[in-house]
């Protein structure tokens, strides 16, 4: 399964990669991603606008890219994918994050090493 985590401009680095910290989990120890298998490129960005941009109430944001990865990269980092969140179409969560922050940093680096790639929005 192919999933994407959408990125704002300041989560994209000057060297053309994304910041691994963008993958770190929320207080519930989940990282929000979207299933993008067999989804057309234009549709992926529509999902970003509908599911991320439009639902943000604290400020106006824009999505400039996405960190794209296979579930195998997630499992290689010792994490797992909760593939279907019933109330949110195409949504999934990266789960299994450890409680200790240093271990979370290590897992975020591990996902990127195992194969997570920046896709910039055209």
């Amino acid at each position, binding site marked *: 399964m192919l999933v994407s985590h959408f990125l704002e401009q300041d*989560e994209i680095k000057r060297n053309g990669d994304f910041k*691994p910290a963008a993958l*770190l989990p929320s207080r519930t120890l989940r990282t929000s991603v979207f299933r993008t298998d067999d989804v057309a490129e234009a549709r992926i960005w529509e999902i970003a606008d509908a599911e991320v941009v439009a*639902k943000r109430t604290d400020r106006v944001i824009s999505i400039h890219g996405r960190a794209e990865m296979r579930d195998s990269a997630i499992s290689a980092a010792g994490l797992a994918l909760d593939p279907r969140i019933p109330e949110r179409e195409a949504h999934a969560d990266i789960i299994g994050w450890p409680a200790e922050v240093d271990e979370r*940093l290590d897992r975020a680096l591990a996902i990127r090493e195992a194969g997570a790639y920046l896709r910039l929005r055209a």
Partner: protein
Amino acid sequence: MTVTDDPRSLPFQARDSTPGMGSEAKDLARRFGRAHGHSTAYSNASRLIVKRALAEACERASVEGWAGPGTSAAEPMAILYSEDFIDSLPSGFPSPEFSIAPTGEIILEWDYGNRRVLLVSVDRDGVVSYAGRFGIEKGHAAVPFRGALPRPIGEWLLRVFPKR
């Protein structure tokens, strides 16, 4: 994690006037300066620029839910500890890139590609957590921050900086 005694060639030089600089950071800075042979001043102005970048990152994360449900605003005490951490870096240290973790910690990142990367997290209790990659080596741990650069982090910074 192993700690190397091999100094890298880096443009660092010990400056006793460096704010908040502890003995271990001074020792590292001396090693950097000895290895490289010239100085690059990490001036107060440079620190202000770095802290401005930190402030800009924190501004984006100033309210609960800034990165979606279940995300915490940047912790004020973590910001203060991060400023102290910046002050503890020896002269000439390249600036990190900043992020805010969805759980409120401040993240500093030095990434030189080819598995030369160090992530440092500073939390509201002054605990500094880190994870690094240097070639086939990797390591992670958490250490208390007491105003001086923790030696394990200094050693990781030595490793990941490219030789000049």
